[in-house]
């Protein structure tokens, strides 16, 4: 790595970008909890939170305050260090993924170009797979360190679920890379800017990725690790106060990041139709592009919530059957057909 390229401006730019992305993820995760209850209320024909502030907009702040000031209980039989490490790991891995997502094109500040992506590495998507793989640790360490058999059971469920659904997710992504020819998320977005969105070329791959994203985020219908009617509450059963808050918060950050990822990989990211023929200044187009990405992301977040309040939870064996016997063969078939079509288009028969 050429470290001589690092100068003061580069450092300030990147630190600013990282802080901004982190702050926005936290803010969106916070308001996702509010949106979730509003969506649930709307689907179930209720009003939802409407006491704190206009439309209940201050509700997340009130909840956060409550979580901070609640009494903190660490079970005496728990492993203290690991008990604290668990929620920290969950939060860390949830935030790491945002490093490789391109949040927008280039912004120009009087001749100084700022790319709105923290790290444009050519292993972007593999980095996401690596972080997803490490996301298991938060659940497993927390569940085991609680020294409670229900927590441990939930942690085992969570770990095996995440491992099982990583495979079809990776296979679905391989089919996408065969078309794009690049692992860099920036390249993938730029290709969709000029051509079709990849959801048109890879509908099956997108469907598999979507299902796996639900499973990786532990969202209904795959929220087996926190099946409260079987496991008393799941891997965070013994947690209280802000440590519980971290676990719940990490879930919402994961949901936001995977929504942004799906928008980037399959729905054109920050590009939107006719963006190059509007005749606007490049900076304005970049800002509109950011808005487009967030619009797509919010649509996916709404979809996550819609599914949660519509579908019941799967049984554990159904979950495993779906993962191993349906999604993996389907993803392999998708990969095979994609490869055959690419080969045919390159050299005919």
């Amino acid at each position, binding site marked *: 790595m050429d470290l001589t390229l690092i100068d003061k401006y580069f450092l300030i730019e990147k630190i600013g970008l990282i802080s901004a992305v982190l702050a926005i993820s936290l803010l969106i995760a916070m308001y996702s909890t509010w949106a979730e209850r509003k969506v649930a209320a709307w689907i179930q024909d209720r009003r939802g939170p409407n006491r704190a502030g206009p439309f209940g907009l201050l509700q997340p702040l009130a909840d956060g305050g409550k979580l901070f000031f609640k009494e903190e209980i660490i079970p005496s039989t728990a492993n203290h260090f690991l008990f604290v490490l668990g929620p920290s790991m969950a939060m860390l891995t949830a935030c790491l993924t945002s490093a490789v997502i391109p949040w927008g094109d280039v912004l120009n500040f009087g001749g100084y170009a700022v790319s709105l992506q923290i790290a444009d590495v050519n292993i972007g998507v*593999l980095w996401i*797979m690596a972080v*997803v793989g490490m996301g298991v640790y938060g659940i497993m360490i927390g569940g085991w360190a609680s020294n409670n058999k229900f927590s441990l059971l939930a*942690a085992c469920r969570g*770990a095996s679920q995440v491992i099982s659904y990583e495979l079809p997710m990776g296979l679905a992504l391989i089919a996408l890379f065969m078309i794009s020819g690049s692992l860099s998320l920036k390249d993938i977005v730029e290709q969709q800017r000029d051509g079709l969105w990849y959801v048109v070329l890879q509908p099956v791959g997108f469907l598999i990725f979507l299902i796996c994203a639900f499973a990786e985020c532990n969202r209904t219908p795959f929220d087996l690790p926190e099946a409260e009617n079987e496991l008393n509450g799941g891997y965070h059963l013994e947690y209280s106060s802000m440590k519980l808050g971290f676990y719940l918060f990490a879930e919402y950050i994961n949901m936001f990041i995977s929504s942004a990822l799906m928008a980037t990989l399959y729905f054109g990211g920050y590009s939107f139709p006719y963006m190059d023929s509007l005749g606007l200044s490049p900076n304005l187009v970049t800002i509109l592009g950011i808005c487009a990405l967030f619009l797509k992301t919010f649509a996916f977040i709404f979809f996550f919530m819609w599914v949660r309040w519509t579908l019941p939870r799967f049984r554990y064996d159904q979950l495993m059957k779906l993962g191993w016997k349906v999604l993996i063969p389907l993803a392999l078939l998708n990969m095979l057909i994609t490869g055959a079509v690419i080969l045919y288009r390159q050299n005919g028969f």
Partner: protein
Amino acid sequence: MGIDMIIFTVLSAIAIAAALGVILSKNPVNSVLCMITCFVAIAGHYIMLNAQFLFVVHLIVYTGAIMVLFLFVLMMMNLNADIEPQKRNWLKYAGAISGGALLLVLVAALRDASVPAIQSGAPTDIGLISNLGKTLFTSYVVPFELSSVLFLSAMVGAVVIGKK
């Protein structure tokens, strides 16, 4: 001291401390966590060498998959010092002697090894994914395909053993 030297020193210190933690820790779960830290630090060295693909595969395969399985097994067995069987004395001596012999072999091998000088004009992008892929599928395609067959047979073998 340049910035890459500082990063190298910090990563090496973490790696060595974590590696010591693996063998010195009494609790097997802590050992596994130390091992994960060690792997992450080594992955950091790979990125310093601009071997991005190796870096990310190291993270996916070792920290993401293999260590999760380690942790899984250890957590299910719930090992701790109370139920650990007392080892016999001669076993401890045998372990120390064989470990020492291995160290001797390693030191002897490293002492005579000549480290080739790094050419300043050598390409630094050899570890990037496209270069690596092209090399694997042109110069080294036969060993690559052979090892994939080996992996497939290992997978089939694991399934067969698991079914028994």
